[in-house]
Every structure is written in C-alpha cells, then in structure tokens.
C-alpha cells in the first residue's frame, strides 16, 4: 500500500507522451462504444494487437504462406524460416537456452495440459502429491485434477494470505513432504494481480527435486521474463495476452526434462518414421508439435515479441506502476469499494467489490459508459471462495492505458454507487 506521500515519488503523475504515441499503434483504441470513447480495461482477459503485428500476419499470407518443414520449394522454405525465426525470437524473449526448449502450443491452457499429460501422466503415482496454489487460474487446476484422477495422485493447496500473497510459510512446510512431485503456481495472479516470488519458489523446489510448473500467462506482457533466472522447469504463456494472436502459446521446458517425456499429441512432423507396428518420435521441439503448426500465429507472436522489445520496457513498467497506484488512490474514493488483493508486488490490475452491488451490475453499467472491465470469477473460483465473495470487478491496465481512462472508470463507478444508493 502506498500513502499519498509515497505516491508523489512515483515516476509519472500524468500520461506521458510516449504512451500517447504507443496508443496510435492500436487501431481498436480509437473505437467508440455507445457514442463514448472506448476505455479498455480488460487487458488481463486479452490484450489488443498493434498494427505492426497485424501487418506481419497479412504480409505472411500475401507473400510467403505454405506449409512448413516438409517442402523443398521456395515458399515452404520461407514459411519455415519465418516460423523457426519466430521460435528463436521467443527463445531470446524469455531467455531459454535453446530453441529445443521452446514449444509452440495453442495457448497457456494447451501448454499446461501438455505438461500434465506428458510429464504428470507418466511420472505421477498413487499417493504422489501435486501442490497447487489457491490463486491458480482454472488452466493450472483442471488439467491436474484430470491427471490426478487418472494416476491416483493427490492435490494439495498452498493457501493465500489475506493480503492476496501466497502463504510462503505454509509452502515451506508443505514441500517437506517427500510425496510432493510437482508444484504449480502462477507468476502473476489474474484475479488478484499478485506477483509471486517464483524464483525463490523454484529454488526451493529444485533442492527437493520437485518439478515446477509456472503459469506465466499474466506476466509476460508486464515485465521482461527470464526463465533461466527464474529457474522454472516449465513456463507457459499465451500469445493473446502479450499483444499477439489468439491460437498460439508457448511451453518452455528444460531440455533434459523434455527429452525424457512422451509426446502429448500424435500426427505428422512429430515422428521420424511410422509403421502400424512401430513409431519413432522426432527430436525436440518437434516431438511436441504434431500436425501443421499455427504458422501464421507463431510468426505473429514473434512480431509481438519484437513490438514489446521495441518499447522501453523499464520505463513502461514504471508507468504501469504509476497507473496502478493512481487507480488505487482514486478507487478508494468510491463509496463501499474494497480492493481484493493488496500485495506489495502487483501488476497493474485491481480486483474490487462494492458493498451491496453485484459485480455483474457494475460491469453492465460501466459498459454503458464505454468502460470495459471484466466481472465474475476470472476462472479462479478458489480465490473467490477464499475471500468469501461471489465475484469481483477487475480493471486491468496495459501500457496503453492513460490516467484519464482511470478517471473515466472512477467516474462511472460513482454513477453506479449513486444509482444503487451506496453510502460509505
């Protein structure tokens, strides 16, 4: 929590010029909604795409498209080079050691299902324990629930503290159990904004031989990520949450672990030879990429990484922090409003509730004012249960949001509380 005195030391108190410049890259930000300018504060659900990425995709389809890997002709060569070039861009973007560690999937959910099945499905035994944090998105719960049912493994939950941070004491205690084989935690919580100490957690787990599965879906757009310095065994994220396309995601995995794993899906390109009696798997990363991959989407993701790299990410992070704190100062002026998730380390999003007003009503009324927020459980039902609330309203910011947009949000919220006659 920041006091106003601390606030004044923040990097930005007004929307800086570079943000106004960046906004021009995003055509959708000029949209009107019910004759009001769109205020898009639903970036945690999906981010918007800059023209640079759109143009890369269109150019690919207009000049280079063909299937990859299998062709000797020029277009297929070009497509393959663009596709593998995108892999190299992503490798560099997350600091992986080798392109063999970078698997293209269709999204975070697909990535985690791959790990749960191809690692968990083959290594978990009856009575083994999977530790899952209480603040996980369903994407990092359901695949484990399914594999636990199949293998007889047991899921145990690492609790959250009242401020929305992970209970690290409990975690320390829980990993002493030798039955613990896998630990699943998100780098950043989509429901609370909390940035988890994943490097610390991975180091603890590494000591005990526990495999770490880090859900980075909410992390990659807000700050640079380096999987090696985090020390994760697996790290998953999605294109559409980092200004890239839908239909694409990444599973980073440590090469020595990936090597020993069976494939998740079967099909073309993931095999070296096929007969009805015997099949030989291909090398990394192709073993995990069955069939025609999401070629255009991978290339789009590479362009999104280029775009993020072209920003001054340190400055952008500072700006997002300022937005976050500005939003907090303003939000608490709304009668009956309570922020859920008060971690000192948060990305630029606030989940909140207002006494006596259901989030769904808030969402609809805000929508009428042109303000797009998400309301509901944010695919994190256990978090809602933990805090004893049915749902929250979530305003999630990106670097292209402005101080003025926060003012619009807060103004609209005041209309809500006035309508519902909420007083302090």
């Amino acid at each position, binding site marked *: 929590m920041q006091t106003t005195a601390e606030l004044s030391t923040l990097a930005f108190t007004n929307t800086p010029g570079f943000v106004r410049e960046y906004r021009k890259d995003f055509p959708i930000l000029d949209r009107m909604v*019910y004759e*009001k300018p769109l205020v898009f504060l639903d970036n945690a659900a999906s981010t918007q795409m800059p023209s640079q990425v759109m143009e890369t995709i269109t150019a690919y389809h207009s000049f280079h498209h063909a299937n990859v890997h299998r062709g000797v002709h020029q277009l297929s060569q070009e497509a393959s080079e663009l596709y593998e070039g995108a892999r190299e861009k992503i490798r560099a973007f997350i600091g992986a050691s080798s392109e063999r560690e970078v698997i293209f999937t269709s999204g975070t959910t697909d990535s985690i299902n791959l790990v749960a099945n191809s690692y968990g499905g083959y290594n978990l035994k009856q009575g083994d324990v999977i530790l899952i944090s209480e603040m996980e998105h369903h994407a990092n719960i359901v695949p484990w629930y399914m594999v636990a049912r199949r293998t007889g493994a047991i899921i145990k939950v690492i609790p959250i503290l009242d401020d929305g941070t992970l209970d690290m004491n409990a975690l320390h205690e829980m990993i002493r159990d030798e039955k613990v084989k896998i630990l699943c935690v998100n780098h950043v919580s989509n429901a609370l904004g909390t940035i988890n100490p994943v490097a610390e957690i991975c180091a603890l787990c590494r000591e005990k031989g526990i495999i770490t599965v880090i859900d980075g879906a909410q992390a990659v757009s807000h700050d640079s990520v380096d999987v090696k310095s985090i020390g994760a065994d697996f790290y998953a994220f999605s294109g559409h949450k980092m200004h890239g396309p839908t239909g694409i995601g990444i599973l980073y995995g440590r090469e020595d672990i990936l090597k020993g794993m069976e494939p998740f899906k079967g099909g073309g390109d993931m095999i070296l030879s096929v007969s009805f009696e015997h099949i030989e798997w291909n090398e990394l990363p192709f073993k995990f990429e069955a069939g025609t991959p999401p070629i255009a989407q991978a290339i789009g993701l590479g362009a999104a990484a280029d775009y993020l790299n072209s920003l001054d990410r340190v400055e952008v992070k500072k700006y997002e922090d300022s937005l976050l704190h500005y939003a907090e100062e303003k939000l608490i002026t709304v009668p009956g409003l309570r922020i859920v998730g008060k971690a000192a380390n948060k990305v630029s999003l606030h989940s909140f509730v207002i006494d*006596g*007003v*259901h*989030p*769904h*009503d808030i969402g*609809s*009324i805000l*929508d*009428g*004012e042109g303000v797009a927020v998400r*309301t*509901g*459980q944010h695919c994190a039902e256990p978090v*809602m249960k933990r805090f004893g609330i*049915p*749902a929250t309203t979530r305003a999630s910011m990106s670097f292209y949001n402005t101080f003025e947009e926060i003012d619009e949000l807060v*103004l609209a919220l*005041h*209309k809500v509380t*006035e*309508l*519902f*006659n909420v007083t302090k």
Partner: protein
Amino acid sequence: MLLNNRSKNLYQEVILDHNKNPRNYSQPERFSHFAKGNNPLCGDKLDLFLLLNDEKIVEEIGFIGDGCAISKASASIMTTVVKGKHIDEVRKLFDGFHNMAVGNISASEDPALRRLRVFEGVKDLPARVKCATLAWHTLDAALNNKEIISTE
C-alpha cells in the same frame, strides 16, 4: 449524474427496490416443486420452491439465492406475479417473458406482461438476458420436475 440510456432503461427504481427488498425471499414451509438455478457466467444462484394445489394453482412460492440485481429482482417480481395463477397461465407468462427479453415481441403487445415490462431493457444487453430469465427457467424446470438447471 447522467447514465447511459440502456442502463437507465434497465436499472429502474422498481428493479433496484426488488433487488434490495426481494419479496417472497424464503423457503415456504410446505412445497410440492423445487429446482435450483445456476448461471455460471455471473455466479447467479437460486433455489426456487413452489406449492401447487389440486387445481394446479400456485399457492405458495419462495426463493433464496444470490446474484446480480437483475436476476434477484426478476425472481422477486416473478414470485409476486405468478402467485395465485394456474400453471398453464404461468407457462404462457414464461414464454411471453422470454420472448420479450430476447426482443422477439414488445411488452406492449401482451397485456399480461404489464408488471414484467420493467425487464424489457435487457433485450439491449444480450449478456444480461440470462440473468433476467434465470428465475423463469428455474420455475419452468421446477414445474417439469427437473431439479437443477443452468442457463450457461
């Protein structure tokens, strides 16, 4: 402060009132029909209890649940409207309400919908149609002896 028209049309005084003070908000002592309604999208949940007498008239009705203002007010107003009515009439009201909510008919076309027309505004908010109709779908399920329904 000035509110957008769509919001104003929907969040009328009567809806806000029923949201705050829902009528028939309890489980009746005796009931013959029961169903649970669930709208996972916004987390609306509803238990609906009905007592039909021998003439198939709704003698008692009550609900308990949690949800947005639209779903709560809709349940509350529904209970006041269907009480004392024959189930054939209730089913006709359900059809009428549903058609009004999705914009197939205008409330003014059907005098029976008079007390329900406050919900006509949902037709402009497609995401909220399910909130408004949840109680009615649950009622329909109770009458058809389906115990759990979901409007997702």
